[in-house]
Each structure stands twice: as structure tokens, then as C-alpha cells.
């Protein structure tokens, strides 16, 4: 008797209400569109997430690796009830957020990754995700974790999340916190923005193609120095090393 293992391994997604796209203006005056990502678009996002695995600052490497695996698992039907939203500026990928439905009353936030920094893009993306959980999926609360101090400030502190340390989160390693409907409603006026419907030209541009981020996070400058500075507060050895490098450069120019 033959068994189709794929039928066993592939999760059956629960039907979920669609996310209705919205747009907003950033501090730069640029319009940003938040829209749902279809499964067949995932490879277009993966190639822009992969470089983050090598960015050893602000936990981009950890978050990038986890997000990559979540998106890949979603694409290859190995993650149940996941949704993905893309945040785009003029087609350019500015942020990616994802989450899942645990049951009809409970949501789970997975990741929020900003590829354009300094304009609250990540904060707007997170707010859009939570808006989806409460307003479209009808969840009573959403479990949230953070890997980075920036995330902790943005979610746990700004939204005043409640502790749910006794509830395990799929991401592991950190305790769960919860955004309840009451807390979300309290934050709506100050943290949640966006306009609907999205003007057709903006939406068409976003849907047409996911363009690469123009200014993505990059690895920290001189990681050797970052390591050494902990043990060599005067950095004398490093300066000598740098001078030697400069001399070598000068010599090569002269040659």
C-alpha cells in the first residue's frame, strides 16, 4: 500500500480574511504601501532577506535567519496559517512582517524586519500586522517576542505589552508577551496610521514588482575593532595595525 507522505506533511491552512492594503506617508514624505504577499512572491522576498544573515548588528543576523526559514517554510508548505505582508516604497521593499493564527482567538507575531531604517517603517509595519490580527482575523490577543533591544522598545514598551511568560512562543529563547485588544485600542490613536483605499497607481507599482531595498542594513564597520575594544581600551595595538595598513596602501600606490 502506498502512502502519499506529502498529504501528511503539508499543513492545511485555515481560511483567513484577506489583508486590505493601505498606505501612509513617512517623515520623508514618501508614500509607503502595506500589502499582503502571495505565496508565489516569497522567492522575490527571500533574496532580499538572505543578506541580512550576515549583518551582525541589532540582531539582523538572528532575525534574518529566522525570517528566512519561516518564509521558506511557508513557500514550501511547511508552516501552517502564516501570512506575510510587504511594505514598499515606490515598489522598493522597505520592510517585511509575518505572523500566524494559532487559533481563532489567538494570533502569534513572528517577525518584523525593516530594510529601510530611521523612518518608523518597522513600527508602521508592526502596527499594520496587529491591525490585521485584531480587525480582520478577530483575535483577542497576539503573542509577541523580541530579539533586539530596538524591538523590545518598539513593542513591549510603546504598546505596554502584558507578560505571558508561562506561554511558550514558537520562536523560543525569549518569554512571550501579549498585545491584547484593549492595549491595541489604547494605542490606535498614536501608533496606528494608514489610509484606504490605496490609490491605484501606488498599489499597481507595489504589485508590479518587489524591487530591492536601496539602502539595506549593512554589517557593522570594522568588526575586528568592535571585538578588540572590549579587551584593549586604549586600542594601541589596533592603531599600530592600522598605520601598517595605511603604509602598505601608500606603498602600493607609489608602486
Amino acid at each position, binding site marked *: 500500500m502506498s502512502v502519499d507522505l506529502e498529504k501528511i506533511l503539508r499543513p492545511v491552512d485555515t481560511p483567513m480574511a484577506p489583508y486590505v492594503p493601505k498606505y501612509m506617508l513617512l517623515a520623508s*514624505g514618501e508614500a509607503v504601501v502595506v500589502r499582503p504577499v502571495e505565496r508565489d512572491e516569497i522567492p522575490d522576498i527571500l533574496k532580499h532577506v538572505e543578506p541580512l544573515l550576515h549583518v551582525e548588528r541589532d540582531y539582523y543576523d538572528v532575525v534574518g535567519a529566522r525570517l528566512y526559514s519561516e518564509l521558506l517554510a511557508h513557500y514550501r508548505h511547511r508552516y501552517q496559517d502564516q501570512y506575510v505582508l510587504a511594505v514598499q516604497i515606490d515598489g522598493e521593499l522597505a520592510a517585511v512582517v509575518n505572523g500566524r493564527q494559532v487559533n481563532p482567538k489567538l494570533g502569534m507575531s513572528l517577525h518584523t524586519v525593516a530594510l529601510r531604517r530611521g523612518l518608523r517603517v518597522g513600527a508602521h509595519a508592526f502596527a499594520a500586522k496587529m491591525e490585521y490580527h485584531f480587525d480582520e482575523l478577530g483575535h483577542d490577543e497576539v503573542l509577541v517576542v523580541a530579539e533586539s533591544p530596538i524591538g523590545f522598545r518598539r513593542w513591549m514598551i510603546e504598546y505596554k505589552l502584558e507578560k505571558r511568560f508561562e506561554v511558550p512562543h514558537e520562536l523560543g529563547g525569549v518569554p512571550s508577551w501579549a498585545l491584547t485588544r484593549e492595549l491595541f485600542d489604547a494605542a490606535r490613536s498614536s501608533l496606528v496610521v494608514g489610509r484606504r483605499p490605496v490609490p491605484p497607481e501606488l498599489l499597481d507599482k507595489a504589485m508590479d514588482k518587489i524591487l530591492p531595498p536601496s539602502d539595506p542594513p549593512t554589517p557593522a564597520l570594522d568588526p575586528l575593532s568592535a571585538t578588540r575594544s572590549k579587551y584593549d581600551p*586604549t586600542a594601541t595595538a589596533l*592603531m599600530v595595525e592600522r598605520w601598517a595598513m595605511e603604509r602598505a596602501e601608500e606603498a602600493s600606490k607609489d608602486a
Partner: protein
Amino acid sequence: MRDVYVAGIGITTFTRLEFALSEIASYASMMALKDAGVSEVDQVYVANMGAPRVNHQTALASAVVDSLSLTPAGAAAIENGPASGGSALKAGFQAVASGMEDVVLVAGVERMREVNNLEATDFVATLTHPIAEYIYGVTLPAHAAMFTRLYMDKYGVTERHLAMVGVKNQNAALNNEWAHLQQEITLEGILDSPEAMTNNPYVAEPLRFFDACPVSDGGAAVVLVSKEKALELGRPLIRLSGVGQATDTHAVHERVEPTDLLAVRKAAADAFEMAGLTPEDVDVAELHDAFTILEIAESEEVGFFPRGEGHLALERGDTALGGKIPINVGGGLKGRGHPVGATGVAQAWEIVTQLRGDGGARQVEDAKVGFTCNFGGFGNNVVCLTFVRED
């Protein structure tokens, strides 16, 4: 008193730097020494506010001089709050002008992002009056907010004026590769759109997020020399022609009129008097815009505009690049960033860059006279400097 010249300048990127504090200072210093063409100095002054508290390091100047292999030069750290940089420049000026030293390296450095925002804010707040202000939770944003409210009531300054300063300076930083903030902002995005209150929330009403400078790490350095040495080095002759420093009451509430920045007024007047200049002679200025209101207020106190008319000059575009008196064309503290101990030196770096004609896209045409105002405390310790290009 001998004439004093700036022979070399150097700076690091202002951002979050994963380097040791002394290394940040050393990197800027190496650039300045290389720019000046000197390898030996008589004296090193290092301006810094927070090393013992934030970075757990004391005797910073000793570390810097050793990092740079400049021993046995004299070395001392100078802590004078956010006016540390200006104060170190004044000390360097005195050392050369008096004839005691011929070559003095003045570096300014701060690494504030080693701690989180709350700790950084608290560290800066330690400059307030310990009994009358600090213990009640006053922070610099709170001080600036109260000052702004009074200024608005008295002179008709609005939140739009504040936002205009923020947009002008943050966008000016786009022309400065060393500046911390490299993001364009617009009035629509931070003030007029439905999303503006979320993009730009109140930090301490009426001041909003984009009214405040960022918390930055960074270093800057200049080499001060005697005229004889300057001629020998052959660098452009930029003379540090005027130095003024003044103080005011430690607790702001003790001032007769809190909107009067008397220390700014006196420090500027003294610098201009020493230099034999007037505010009308200035081609380019660096004012201490830790908060947007301060650029407006200081532009009046130093004499560029009549009292209460700084915001009107802003409206006319007088303070923009190409205006009557361009202010903070390199981004100021708002756009370049504000590593507190480095700021006064970074202001000098920008002015010397301008007077040399090396400003690139932000160059003020034919700039010959420059001015800096380094504002310490909440206006209780201020250093103003004038610089003149001698062709």
C-alpha cells in the same frame, strides 16, 4: 598675545560607533595631524563629557596621547558639559596665544550609544542643578520644551517654525558624508500629513521627535598652531580670531527672564570684540541646535537678527544655504549629530571646511568669516568662536 591658526582638521562619522572611546578620538586626531602635516605636538586637549560615567574610563587624554604615540606631549581632558569642545578649543587657543606651546591638538569625543537612550538622557541631565532641577526629573528635552513654550508665547514662534529648522538642518546633513542622519524629511511628513503625529510624536510638548538632535557617537579634532608654524606648514591660513566664553545661573528658574540667553549674548559679543568683527561680517555660522528652538533663539542672541525675529528670518530663507547668513549648512547638531564632548570641535571642523572652500555641495560661496556657538548646560556655559580666512 600671538595669533592662532587652524592647521589641520579631522572628524569621524557621527553615528553609533563600535570603537573604544580613545580610538574614536585618535582616529579624528590622526586625520587632523595628517591634514596639518605634523607628527609631533606640544600639548593635547581632549574634550569629553561622559567617559567616567558612560564609558567607565577616566584620564582619557592619557589614553589618547598614548594611542597616537604622541608621548611625551602634555595631555589633559576637559569636561565642561556640552561646551567641552569649545572649552578645549579655548584652552588650546590660550596655550598657543600665550607663547607657551607652538602646536596643540584639540580633540573632542563622546560615545553615548554605549548605553541605552534612557541612560544617555539621564547622563546629559546630570548637568542640571542637582538639588533644584535634577532630583525633580528635569531632562534637557524638558528644559528645552519649557523654554520653547515661553518663546512661542513671547515671540509668536510656532511648531511650523520649529519643524522648518528641523527640515532645513536634517536635509542639509545629506550633503555631509560624516553626518549621523542621512534621511530626508519633509514638512508634509512630519507636520502636515495625517500620519505626522505618529511619524513625529511629542517628546516634551511642544517639542517633537524631529525637533531634537540624535544621540550620537563621534570624534572631531583640530590642530592649532602659531603663525610661524602655520606659514611653515603651508596649509590655508585660517585664523581663530575671537574667543568668548560666558556663564549664567545654573538653575534656569533663577534667571530674571528665562528666554534671555545672556551667556550666549556675552560670549558672542566678546568673541566679536576680540576679533574686531561684527555679526554682519559673518558668512557662515554653526549654532548649537540641540533642539530646533535653540537655533532660532541663538541666531538672535549672537546678533544675526533682532530679538524675536529669528523665526521670521527663517521664513525668509535667510538662514538657508544661499541666504543672508547660512546657519548649520553641515546639518548642525540636528543632522550631523551631537556627541556632546565632540560637538564644539565639530563645529570648528565645519567652519574651517567652509573657509577652505572644501564644503562641496554645502559650500557657502566665498566664505571668509565663520562663527560658532557651543551652548553648554541649558545656556549656563557658552563658548563662541570666530574664524577668519587670510588669503
